[in-house]
Structure formats: structure tokens, C-alpha cells
């Protein structure tokens, strides 16, 4: 860190004036709302009217809210499924780095990640069409293969709706896991592979003996990022199912919004949002710790 001007210890007032705009914006539109959310989670919050202090009532109510806890159960399924789906990006990344032509690698990498360039809402809407009961692609495919009996209203069936949501983005390659796996594998020094080849280590053995251990730290990081992303899961479920049918695809974010906007229970929604916030901040803190300690890897950033 270079100091300028070097000698002067007492700071010029201009410095504080220059920082003032940022301080005001962050104070007013980041710190204030976050703190007022925590504050009002202890109130029967009636925006525009008189709110009454209710202590822990909102949190007591939360503990008895079956839909809220069910929505966390759904998050568990969403999380487990996302981790399972890493198999595809992992295999794709392994396949991609084994391509000998750099040019082919670039072309395939681009093709594999193009879906990332589509806005999330568009992907959700296209998939909602794929799942349509009558004209939907999924049912049409089944009919083509003579499996028309299996054709059904995928998003309307409580037993299938969540899994249908999870399959959005199949085959799950276009995403952060793939980019991380690929960049990790790309950056493993070639000498290691040459040494392997000399020792007669095969491709599969190499994967388990070298690639996986070298990716360990990245996978840890990815796990925590996925937990955080999962906690914020919501807009896809909103667009395709609104949390239904029969709360089968309910997630905490949607429950929170329902309570605020449909139920007008602002204080309760603030308590739910504070709970989500606490979960997330604990996990983010863990991520930050990982980042700081992350000196062993040969991969830059994530």
C-alpha cells in the first residue's frame, strides 16, 4: 500500500467529502433497510400505520409455521439435487480438457456455456413451455416414443412438480460448477500428467488419484456457494408454479413474499427474512474464511 502524500498524517478534509456520497448511499439503501428489517421483525409491522411491539411473537409463530419448514425441506432436496448434478459438468470438464486441439476446446467450451448467456427468466419461461401439458416438448417426446401414457401435467402434479423444476437447465453444464471444474483442471500443471503417463496411470485412475484431490478445495467452496444460492432460490418457482401445487414447490423466499404481499403480515415477513439473512450471513462468513485461507490452490479465484 503506497501512501500519498507520504509524510502528512492528518488527512485532508477533501478525502471525507469524496467518500461522503458512497457512505450516504450505502447507509441509506443498504444498512438502513437491512437493520430496519431486523428491528421490525419484533413488531407487528403496519407500514403507514401504527406498529406495535410484539417481542418474539413473530419468531414463535415461525416455529409453528409448517409451510415455512416444509419449504426448507424443499431447499434440502434442491441442494442435494444440485450437488448430484455436478456429475455432468465434472464429466464434461474432464472430456473437454482431454481434447488435444486448443481450438476445439475453445469451441466446445463456448457451446457448452452459451445457455448461461440467456436471462434466467427466459430460461424459466422456455422450460415452462417444455412442460406444458398439451403442446409441451416433454410430452411430445414421450408421445413420439410411444410413451404417451406417461405424458402429463408435470407442474400440476404435487409429486413431480419439484423434480420438474429441478430439471430446468438440463444437462446442467452451463453454470458455475462447470467453469470452476474446467478452470481447475486447465490449471493443473502438465508435468503431473506427464509423470502419471510415465507411471502408467490410466485416465480413470488419474481422475480419482489426481484430479479429485486437486479439486477438493474448489469443491468445498462450490458447496458453500451452492448453499447460499439455494437459500435465495425463488424466481423460477414463482414463474412456473407460484410455489404450488399444494405447496409442493414452496421455498422460503416465496413464503416470505406471500406473507408480506398477500397476507400483509409485514412484521412476520421481516422475521422470516431476518432468519434467511442469518442463515446466509453465517454461510457467507464461512466462504470469506475459505477465500482468505485459500493459498494452497494453484487456481486463481473461482
Amino acid at each position: 500500500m503506497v501512501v500519498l502524500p507520504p509524510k502528512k498524517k492528518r488527512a485532508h478534509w477533501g478525502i471525507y467529502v469524496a467518500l461522503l456520497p458512497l457512505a450516504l448511499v450505502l447507509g441509506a439503501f443498504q444498512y438502513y433497510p437491512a437493520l430496519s428489517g431486523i428491528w421490525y421483525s419484533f413488531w407487528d409491522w403496519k407500514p403507514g400505520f401504527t406498529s406495535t411491539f410484539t417481542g418474539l411473537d413473530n419468531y414463535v409463530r415461525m416455529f409453528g409455521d409448517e409451510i415455512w419448514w416444509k419449504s426448507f425441506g424443499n431447499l434440502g432436496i434442491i441442494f442435494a439435487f444440485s450437488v448430484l448434478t455436478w456429475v455432468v459438468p465434472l464429466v464434461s470438464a474432464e472430456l473437454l480438457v482431454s481434447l488435444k486441439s486448443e481450438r476445439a476446446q475453445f469451441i466446445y467450451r463456448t457451446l457448452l456455456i452459451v445457455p448461461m448467456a440467456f436471462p434466467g427468466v427466459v430460461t424459466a419461461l422456455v422450460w415452462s413451455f417444455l412442460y406444458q401439458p398439451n403442446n409441451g416438448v416433454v410430452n411430445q417426446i414421450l408421445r413420439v416414443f410411444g410413451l404417451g401414457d406417461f405424458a402429463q401435467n408435470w407442474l400440476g402434479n404435487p409429486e413431480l412438480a419439484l423434480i420438474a423444476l429441478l430439471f430446468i437447465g438440463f444437462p446442467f453444464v452451463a453454470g458455475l460448477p462447470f467453469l470452476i471444474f474446467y478452470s481447475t483442471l486447465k490449471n493443473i500443471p502438465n508435468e503431473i500428467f506427464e509423470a502419471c503417463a510415465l507411471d502408467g496411470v490410466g485416465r480413470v485412475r488419474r481422475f480419482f488419484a489426481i484430479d479429485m484431490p486437486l479439486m477438493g478445495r474448489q469443491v468445498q467452496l462450490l458447496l458453500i456457494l451452492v448453499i447460499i444460492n439455494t437459500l435465495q432460490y425463488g424466481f423460477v418457482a414463482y414463474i412456473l408454479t407460484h410455489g404450488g401445487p399444494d405447496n409442493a414447490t414452496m421455498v422460503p423466499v416465496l413464503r416470505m413474499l406471500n406473507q408480506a404481499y398477500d397476507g400483509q403480515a409485514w412484521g412476520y415477513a421481516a422475521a422470516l427474512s431476518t432468519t434467511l439473512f442469518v442463515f446466509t450471513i453465517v454461510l457467507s462468513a464461512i466462504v470469506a474464511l475459505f477465500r482468505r485461507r485459500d493459498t494452497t490452490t494453484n487456481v486463481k479465484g473461482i
Partner: protein
Amino acid sequence: MTSLTVKPPVRRRRAGRKQIGVYVALTVIAVVGLLPYLFALSTSVKTNQQFASEYWLPSFPFHFENYVVAWVQIQPYMVTSLLVAAASIVGIVALSLLAGFVLARFDFPGRNFFFIMVITLMMVPGIASLIPLFVMMKDLGLLNTIWVLIIPHIAAGAVLGTILMKTFIEGIPQEIFDAARVDGANPARLFWSIMMPLSLPVIGTVSLITVIGVWNDFFWPLLTISQNELKTVSVGLIFFQGQSGTDFGPMFAGYLLASLPLLLLFTFLSKYFLAGVQGGLPGSH
């Protein structure tokens, strides 16, 4: 960091024949991933009759007028989103470039405290403060104005922006600043004549992150805007679906038109785009 440049151009493996299998597998994965979008593309130039008779394959003649129909519908949403993105970029760059410059190049009491206060906000998830922020905007009477869309993007973007700018500016050689100071430049002059031009790459990264953020933002514009002309693309498309639910051609054309800005950025600025997707860490792939 340097591992990419160090890497020698040695062939990874000696096996020759098996590459065909690798190509086939990769092609299958890529095609399956792209299929929904290709389906959308081929359907976007069909009439409903063509769609009924030729479900899978492209069908001639192509009806490009679907795009005109779609454009008329989504044009106001596109304009709003572009406006929001542009205004947010201006705000974010102005705030964070100045703060980044001061934090990187000056020492003063409270400097670390200030920076920690900024970094802490990285951990605050947008969704968690959505409800109190909504109430705040309601109290300020800003619902259904363009400001309710712009301000949160500026406030959120300035956090990451300041961190990126500070890191970047710390990397600019001190000699350049010293030389300018010897020539009699004051801090304001240093900022305008040296900092701004040198910081263009990081300004670009921040802008790209902002555009991606605006285009993907969903719940906030959904909840704060009810006036049709002020809807952003992400929200407008939902209602677009409702309006012309049976006219598949224009519907898909609309989806693709709405994706076009991000697709173009992805095509021409792929490296920065991926950095943006990964939380603004350049060199991350």
C-alpha cells in the same frame, strides 16, 4: 495467476483414436443443452398452423414478422431495462471510482473501518433486505417510478464496484501518480486525467456485471412496478406470456429479443461476461 502463461504447449495425452468418442460425447451434451433454445428459435418464425403441422423441424416460409409483433410488445420493457442499466452504471461508476481511488491512494483515519463497512455488505443477500427496502421506497413515495428500479442497483452495485476499483487502482504503478504530481497535478487532476482513462477495463467489468444484474433482476421490479410502461424486461415477459399465450411464434420471438443484449455481450465480451457471472473476479476461467 501466472499458471496460464507458464503452461508449456505440451500435448496432454498420447492416445489418439479415442478422441472421436470424446467429440461425440461433448457434442451430445452441448446439443442437449442448446435444444430448448434451438426449439425456441425455430418456433419463433412459425405461425400457429405451421407449429401444429411441423412441431419439431423448422418450417418454411419463415415468418420474421413475428419478431416485429414481439418487438412492438416488449419494446417499452427493453427501453426501461436499458435506461435502468445505463443510469445504474453511471451511478455505480461515479460512486465507486471515486471511493476506490481515495481508498487505494490515500491514508487517513478511518480508512480501514470504511472499507470493512463496505466489504461487510458483500455478505448481505439482496433478497433478505427486499421487504424493508420495499417499505422504505413506499414511504418515500418512489413506487412506480424509475428511481425505485435504479437506486437499489446503484446501492448494491457500488459495493462490489468499490472493491473492484480499489483493487484495480492499487495495481496502477505509483510512479505514474508521482510523475503527475511533480508536474503539478492536484488530486482532482490525478483523478480525471490519469485514473479515469487507466480504469477503463475495470469500468467495463463493472458495467457488464450491472447489465447482467439488471436483466436478471426479477422480484424487485415485479413488486415495485405495476405501471406497464415502467416494467423491466424480466417482468414484462411474464405478462407477455399471459397476453399472447396461444401465439407461440411471437412469444418465442419476444423471449429471444429479450435475450439479445446479453447474448451480444456474451459473444463479444465473453471473458468479462464470465467474470461478471462469477461475481466479478476477472481471470476466473
